């Protein structure tokens, strides 16, 4: 696996821009660019920390989720067994017994609560439910913004958003269609097609001459945005500010490509669905591969995987389901010892997909260890369990070691239904974010799960 020298290129490029000549790539000695200590990659660069979210809709079956025992001695029940099977149990810390403190509507509150530490922003009460968006940036963008602002943590792509199961939800606002938000109605849509993600990351040929021209064009577009803004409402000005930021993200990549990175093989052009049966495991595997490569190339350090949306109606035909899982959560009848066998099987299947992704990172050697050592990944859903549709006893896993800042493989069981934001603040601390608290109003906390932090 090759190592990106992107950070170096970009910084020298920017220096060039400031000097008025966009293509002056006068390279200072490598050693000058990096901290003198720390684990290093083959090219001498420090191994970066990475942050990710891995989200699935509709929760879990509590009875099969909450591990037996706490601390390092936890014993997985059936739905966490896939991590044992995949050999990543010791990288996974189940956090149980927390609850969303801003709960008023199960799916909407759960999604925005766990992603922002806040209540949703209501766009309207329509039909028999509500339409909402996020009031604040989702946690992946909280991290992305901070890291993008610092040349030492910036990567060519501020963040990547990946979707696995096709969208089978409703139009109850962006909360139900997207995970990554920069703010209200300001979303980073997920890429669902592996070939498109691949082309985006690895398909653009390097053309330094054209990059110069592109820079001039993008600059003119930004000028036009600025010229338009004074005529607009405050809301539309905000929208155009995002547009400008989006163009800046392109500019930052000009003159740089993951040049020393090994280009992976292209995925299949298409993942057909005979009779509506989605090849979920195959898509998850290839998306995991592309994402792991992008991380290894240091093209990106922040990512989100939306395995399925909040309240998703994914049809898990792999476990015998014929209806959407959201409906099954409501409808499935008690039979024998397991009250909801299809829900349970679908949750286990979903955790197998997550386990594949984590194992893929674990199998990617990096420095003296592997890539999962450098990651902090928040794995969660928007509900406790679909059967009751509540936001207590929230399913949360924290995976990875955050470059040694996280103690992994521990089960933390909240004794007092603590705020889910506590888990989020813990992860933020592990990746070096010093903020004293996270969340808003009832969702705010200044507490961390100290057992998990080194």
């Amino acid at each position, binding site marked *: 696996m090759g190592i990106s020298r992107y950070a170096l290129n970009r910084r020298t490029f920017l220096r060039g821009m400031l000097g008025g000549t966009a293509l002056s790539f006068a390279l200072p000695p490598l050693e000058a660019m990096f901290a003198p200590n720390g684990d290093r990659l083959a090219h001498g660069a420090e191994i970066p920390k990475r942050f990710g979210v891995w989200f699935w809709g509709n929760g879990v079956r509590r009875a099969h989720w909450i591990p037996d025992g706490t601390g390092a001695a936890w014993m997985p029940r059936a739905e966490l067994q896939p991590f044992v099977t995949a050999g990543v149990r010791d990288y996974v810390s189940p956090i149980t017994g927390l609850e969303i403190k801003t*709960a*008023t*509507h*199960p799916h909407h509150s759960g999604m925005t609560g766990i992603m922002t530490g*806040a*209540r*949703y922003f209501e*766009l309207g*009460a*329509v*039909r*028999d*439910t*509500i*339409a*909402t*968006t996020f009031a604040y940036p989702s946690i992946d963008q909280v991290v992305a913004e901070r890291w993008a602002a610092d040349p030492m943590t910036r990567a060519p792509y*501020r*963040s990547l*958003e990946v979707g696995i199961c*096709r*969208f089978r*939800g409703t*139009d109850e606002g*962006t909360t*139900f269609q997207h995970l990554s938000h920069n703010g209200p*109605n*300001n*979303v980073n*849509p997920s890429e*669902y097609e592996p070939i498109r993600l691949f082309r985006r990351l690895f398909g653009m040929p390097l053309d330094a*001459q054209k990059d*110069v*021209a*592109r820079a*001039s064009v993008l600059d*003119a*577009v930004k000028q*036009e*945005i600025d010229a*338009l803004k004074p005529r*607009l*409402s405050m*809301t539309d000005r905000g*929208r*155009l500010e*995002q*547009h400008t930021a*989006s163009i800046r*993200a392109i500019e930052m990549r000009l003159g740089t490509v993951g040049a020393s990175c090994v280009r992976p093989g292209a995925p299949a052009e298409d993942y057909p669905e005979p*009779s*509506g049966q989605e090849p979920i495991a195959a898509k998850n595997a290839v998306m995991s591969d592309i994402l792991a490569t992008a991380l290894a190339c240091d093209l990106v350090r922040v990512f989100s995987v939306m395995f399925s949306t*909040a*309240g998703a109606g994914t049809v898990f035909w792999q476990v015998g389901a*014929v*209806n959407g899982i959201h409906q099954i959560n*409501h409808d499935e*009848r008690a039979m024998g010892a397991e009250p909801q066998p299809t829900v349970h099987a679908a949750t286990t299947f979903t955790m197998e997909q997550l386990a594949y992704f984590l194992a893929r990172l674990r199998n990617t050697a990096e420095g003296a260890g592997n890539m999962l050592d450098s990651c902090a990944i928040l794995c969660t859903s928007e509900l406790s369990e679909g059967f*009751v*549709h509540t936001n207590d006893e929230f399913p949360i896993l924290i995976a990875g070691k955050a470059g040694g800042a996280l103690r992994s493989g521990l089960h933390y069981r909240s004794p007092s239904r603590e705020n889910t934001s506590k888990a989020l603040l813990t992860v933020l601390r592990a990746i070096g974010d010093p903020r004293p608290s996270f969340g808003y109003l009832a969702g705010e906390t200044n507490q961390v799960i100290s057992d998990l932090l080194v």
Partner: protein
Amino acid sequence: MRGGWVSIVALAAACQGQIGGELPRPSASPSPSPSPSPSASPTVSPSPTPSPSPTVEPELPAFAPAPASLRRLTRIEYQNTIADVLGPGLPVPTDLEADTTLHGFTTVAASALNVGPLAAEQYEKIALDLSARVFADPARRAALLGCAPATVEDPCVRTFLERFGRRAWRRPLTSAELDRWVGVARTIDLRLGDVATSLELVTAGLLQSPAFLYRVELGVSDPADPTRRAYTGWEMASRLSYLIWGTTPDDALLTAAEGGALDTPGGLTVEARRLLADPRAKVALGRFFAEHFKLDRLAGITKDLATFPQMNGALPAAMRAEIEQLIARVVFDRNTDLREIFDTRSTFVNADLARVYNLPGVRGPGMVEVTLPDNSPRAGVLTTAGFLALYSHASVTSPTLRGRFVRQSLLCQEIEPPPAGLITELPEVDPNAPPQTLRQRLETLHLAVQPCSGCHSRMDPLGFGFEAFDAIGAYRTTDNGLPVDASGSFDGQAFRNARELASRVKASPAVSSCLVKMAYRYASGHRETDGERRTLRALDESLAAANYRFQDFVVALVTSDGFRMAGE
């Protein structure tokens, strides 16, 4: 998300909710502020209203147009527009974000969402790629440029930018804008020493400008009334063209705008009728109906293959095509009373669909028009397999989902969300009890239980009318071995079967006013405000006055105050 209250068997422990008719409600803020809304808590009334009581129409608030907002081109609008401005024969760009839907329509989301990093990247890549293709082809390049400039200072460069810019931006460029892009061409030419490449990049630049990617329709102050702004002729050209054609204005429309023809209702009418007569209108306005009926979701339906061997991978597309063509026949080809979509016996099937309908003699995958026999259990869109399958589960029907669609989407009668934290409890089934039809079970579980019946009495009885059609829309006379009972009453009017129910729906004034409201929402790109209720009422009257012909209604819509003006 709809929860247990739409479940076919779940017994909601506390699903009381207020049944809203067409009562005024405070409009949602169209522009979210970065702080949580204090009104974000669901409101639940403890006293369900059993049925809509006739309300005395209150005096409507004074007309106040909705504020203007930038509208991002939707995916299809972008694809159409870029093909129109660059010329035919280029590949259709597909590496584009999927549209988001808000309040039922992609056009509403397009007025609210941003160009995020991914979209900006995609727009740049497409613009560079297509521009390079045009410039790599000498004939195309000559056609686009209209000359072969030897230097960037050649006057024809500016002429090209004026002509192409007006087409791409749907308005003339200002001299400052022309200067800017000539300057960009100069800069690139200085660096690369290549005039053609500099113009190729400038072309790609114009296609990334906010003037291209958004519909910038802001209006100008109305001297007669400082509280409102009138959309300019150029802006009206875009509003007309994107609504009726789904793409950028053609040269004739831009010329009409330039000459002031679009400043008056008369001139707008002439151009709207010209656009409506073009085949593109059928496709673009058909998208309104497709979004309204949520036909995109048909692509994702999953049916139990053991129960429905007729189901195959191609059937959902045929189901969709039938509904689209049925509606288009009434609304466009025949340009007749649009409410006939609810009882027309003229429809479209292919071999797969004919098998579901038990119609002999239809072969092949192509759709053919058929007239259903007079004694057919089917007539109109509500008896199409697509509608019936979309609002069903994988193996059983859902009277709740079907009735809810009629009540909420076709009649615009809202049902309040149930209380938060709803716990659904599944009733034990007595294995020794005699078999029941689904209707009988729901009458026990949803309608005989007091808190539940408040909501479900508004949905399930309508859905019972469709019980003679199974979960893929095939006709049946029994359910679970017992005779189907598809009779009922729609707001006090009895029906015996789906056709009679559809006739009742067709005759309901709520159906036409709901369609007016949804079409206005789709066309204007925002959720209607209280200040626009007078416009909506006037459009209701226009539709009736036009004998419910949709095309005449579209003309009334584009000439309405609400469509021509923005709030200050």
